[in-house]
């Protein structure tokens, strides 16, 4: 797996300079999950974001009655876990590997290292996260409106 190439495919790192991507590549770690394995649980402390490189994952939420529902399926080059980098809250959903999955993991601390060296690069990453969250919010608003 060429980490630089994988990072370049992601919307999260759009607009970054080559040297910024290279530093981020050094700061990310490979992770592998087998089918059915849980990446993290709803309610866990969130301390890293994940970029899917291979395979797919279910985004699962638990209702108050305890029942679990798959609310989305993500595939490469989607990413998840980014909300915790911004609001530092607990995980809002569980992530479970649907198949053999490979990911790149970027922790808060490693992102902080990047931010200290490349301030503008970090700002762009945060702008990209905000864009994605904004898109999701528009879609959610639209769905709510249709149901009313």
């Amino acid at each position, binding site marked *: 797996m060429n980490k630089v190439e994988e990072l370049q495919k992601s919307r999260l790192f759009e*607009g970054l*300079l080559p*040297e910024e991507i290279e*530093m981020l590549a*050094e*700061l*990310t*770690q*490979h992770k592998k999950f087998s089918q059915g394995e849980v990446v993290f649980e709803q309610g866990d402390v969130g301390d890293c974001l994940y970029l899917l490189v291979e395979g797919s994952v279910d985004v699962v939420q638990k209702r108050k009655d305890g029942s679990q529902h798959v609310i989305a399926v993500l595939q490469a080059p989607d990413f998840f876990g980014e909300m915790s980098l911004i609001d530092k809250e607990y995980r809002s959903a569980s992530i479970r590997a649907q198949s053999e999955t490979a990911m790149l993991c970027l*922790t808060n*601390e*490693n992102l902080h*290292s990047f931010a200290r*060296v490349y*301030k*503008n690069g970090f*700002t*762009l990453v945060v*702008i990209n996260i905000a864009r994605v969250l904004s898109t999701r919010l*528009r879609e959610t608003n639209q769905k709510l409106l249709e149901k009313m």
Partner: protein
Amino acid sequence: MKALWLREVQAILGREDFLKWWQSLVDLEQKLAAVGSRFDELLAQVNLMDFRAEFTQKNAIDSLYLAGEYEDTAAQLLAEASEIENKSYEAVANFESQRIHVSDLFSRMGALEHNFLSAQTEAREERERLEKELREATVVYERENARKLSLWEEVEQMWARSLDINLGVSERRVKSKRARREAERLFKEAEQHKHSSKALQAEATEAEQKQKEIQQAIEDLRTSARKLFGCLVGEEFLYWPRRENVNEVYCVPINDHAEGFNIELRAKNIYLISRQRGVEFIEPLPPAGDVPEEEDGRIDDFFRRGRPGENAV
């Protein structure tokens, strides 16, 4: 130990003596891993062999006990056989007496029958008397004859029992011999296992010694690095204080580490750590030259750029 500039650390890492030192260390660590693995394997084999020796010895002892039991049983049966044999002689004698007695009764009965048949023309009282005598003689004869047959049955039963016992004795004797042979074989096997265990133990001791020698060689190599390269040598890293920033240290991993640290590490690459946290948090080197922020127009571009498409609010 003095703090170094990055270029000085890079120069050290490029030197031929450093590369030789590093290769020697990696080779020794690989040898240590191989010898350590062999030592563990030998220890496991020694334990297994010891267990086998003990287990086989136990089985040999059990076999010996079994042989003894068979012999005891055979002896008991032999005693019983002798007793039955003696009783059977008595039974045969009894039968013979009874047979002679029955023969006499048969002769008497025959004579009475003859008298009775001959006395057809005699007086009625005489005929009745003879008939009664014949009847009584017949009853006695049949009773005694039945007794004779019963005595013979008894004799035959004793002989059958005696045969049964004799066969049983010989079977147990054979089993006892077999159990003893098995016990001998198992004792020999147990000895062989003990012998093997000793040989393995010797080999394990040798491997342990070799391990210690290699560990010492690694220690010596680490110690020499401090003098040769002016660095601190940890278990897995070399360290040089950073001249550019007194709170930071350059660290160079001796081996690759895909896991176990906050980033993936490659051997002989230079990384940065803080004095306080050490290798608990490792960072890649910052870029050689900074991009002047006034030249980076990306953030300004983001704010200057127009709204995308129709979805803008």
